[in-house]
């Protein structure tokens, strides 16, 4: 069985600044992977490369065995992406937005897929609501819906809980777990919140200044470091933020 995500010696640089350096990472199917790192560590750049939004400077990456550069279309067919700040067409309804993305993703029965997806995310009432009048949490759900309409095996979430209130964070966390357990999706989640990964993820990786400094299963991490507080300490010792 092909790996869900395979990254080999991936590097992205902008002139002399290296955002991601020689990154190697393998993620098995069915994992919920938490990609930790301070702001500016290179997490979002990595997700942008994996979702074909950015071309890597060097190295290789594949989604479900499909190279993101040479087999970009096939790779993108197998992934869903929810950006940090979900932006959709404001003047039209959630249903119209979702219909557009379903067709763009090649979904055969887009209308029934939208209904099923909104039911799965417990938000069928948002279907006829104009996106411009939605709260941050509601947008996040519709953003999640557009990413899973075609039931991709791999789902990328960039800081999914950023800006949400505690209730919104709890709901989203439950949804991520549900997508992983019920649909078997591999989830790659960027975050800089240690509390997020300990509650949701099955494995973690820590990125610091573009380099992977730690990678292990959450069970081993918890066994080694104990509760959330020590996990926080572990994270800070592995990935110290740059001095201001």
């Amino acid at each position, binding site marked *: 069985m092909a790996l869900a995500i395979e990254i080999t010696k991936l590097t992205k640089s902008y002139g002399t600044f290296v955002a991601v350096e020689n990154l190697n990472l393998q993620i098995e199917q069915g994992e919920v992977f938490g990609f930790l790192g301070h702001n500016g560590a290179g997490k*979002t*750049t990595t997700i*942008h490369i994996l*979702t*074909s*939004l*950015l071309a890597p400077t060097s190295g290789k990456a594949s989604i479900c065995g499909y190279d993101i550069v040479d087999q970009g*279309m*096939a790779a*993108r*067919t197998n*992934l869903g*992406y929810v*950006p940090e*700040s979900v*932006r*959709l*067409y*404001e*003047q039209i309804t959630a249903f119209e937005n979702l219909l*557009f*993305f379903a*067709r*763009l*993703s*090649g*979904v055969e029965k887009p209308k029934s897929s939208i209904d099923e997806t909104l039911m799965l995310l417990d938000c069928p009432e948002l279907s006829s609501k104009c996106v411009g009048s939605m709260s941050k949490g509601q947008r996040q759900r519709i953003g999640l819906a*557009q990413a899973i309409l*075609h*039931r*991709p095996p791999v789902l990328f979430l960039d800081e999914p809980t950023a800006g949400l209130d505690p209730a919104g964070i709890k709901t989203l966390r439950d949804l991520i777990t549900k997508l992983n357990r019920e649909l078997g999706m591999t989830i790659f989640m960027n975050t800089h919140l240690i509390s997020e990964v300990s509650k949701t993820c099955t494995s973690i990786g820590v990125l610091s200044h573009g380099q992977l400094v730690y990678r292990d299963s959450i069970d081993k991490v918890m066994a080694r470091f104990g509760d959330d507080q020590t996990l926080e300490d572990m994270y800070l010792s592995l990935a110290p933020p740059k001095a201001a």
Partner: protein
Amino acid sequence: MTAPSFLQTTWLIASSTMKHGTRDRTVALLAAMFFVMILIAAYLGWSATATVNAIYAKAALVFQAQGKPVPPNPVGETPPLSVFRNMVTYVALLGALAALVLGHQIMATDRKSGIVPLLFSRPARRTAIATGKISALFLTIVGILAISLLVNIFTLLVMPGLALNAGVWIGLLKFYTVSALYMFAFAMLGAVCATRFKTESVALLLPITIWLALTFIVPQVTSNISPMAALNPMSANIVPPSSHFFVITSSVFGPLSIAEAYRFLASTYLGVVPGAGASTTAGGALLSLLVTNVMLLGFFTLSVKNLDASRSEYRD
């Protein structure tokens, strides 16, 4: 799950773009102004012809009463399409500006809404997305001009005294074809700038400056034509100077002077003598318009292909 084909993606992007375009107030306002100008042009043509016909009818009665031979109606001796000569100015000014704003909006809407990262992370080729945007622009411009054409056809049919034949209808079609080419060039210019620049103010101001330069400044440099004469479909009263300066500027900048090329072709097809200008042959003028369109099409496709989706939102 199979990715949609190139054509499916193209059509999906085109239909979605047109749907958003019709909801845009700026585009709707400019299109409405263009239609109003078309109606005014039709009314002016009809009114002038009706006046000449009325005067001719009275004069004919006087000639008959005096037993003198009645000369032919001057309306029948002028090219029928010349009644629409004002259209040349309206297309060159308002039509081109409306097309430019429309072209700007097709990319700016996506960039401002922040939808580009989601769009480019889907299994859709960027060239198909660009082709969809181009198709939407083309269909919208053709739609606007088709309505205008219907107004003109109706005007010709209700005007008395015009000698209508196949040549007139072919001339009208040629005029609209060249008008579509001219407007499409400015639409593509708007789209290219909306795709390439990091701030929306530059993305809109630069193509408007280029439009102003092509319409009013370049004709002065190439042919010493005063700004309004460059747009006037009637013969300009200025004799093109034969100094070395204009010989050089005309040959260097002449092919870029698409406003002159349009004026020359449009006036010719409407049966009006185009007068002075850098364009001296219909073939050269048509080539100038075609090359401009092809270059902008290629440039737009490349711009969409190379757009950094991770930083696609405007900075202003």
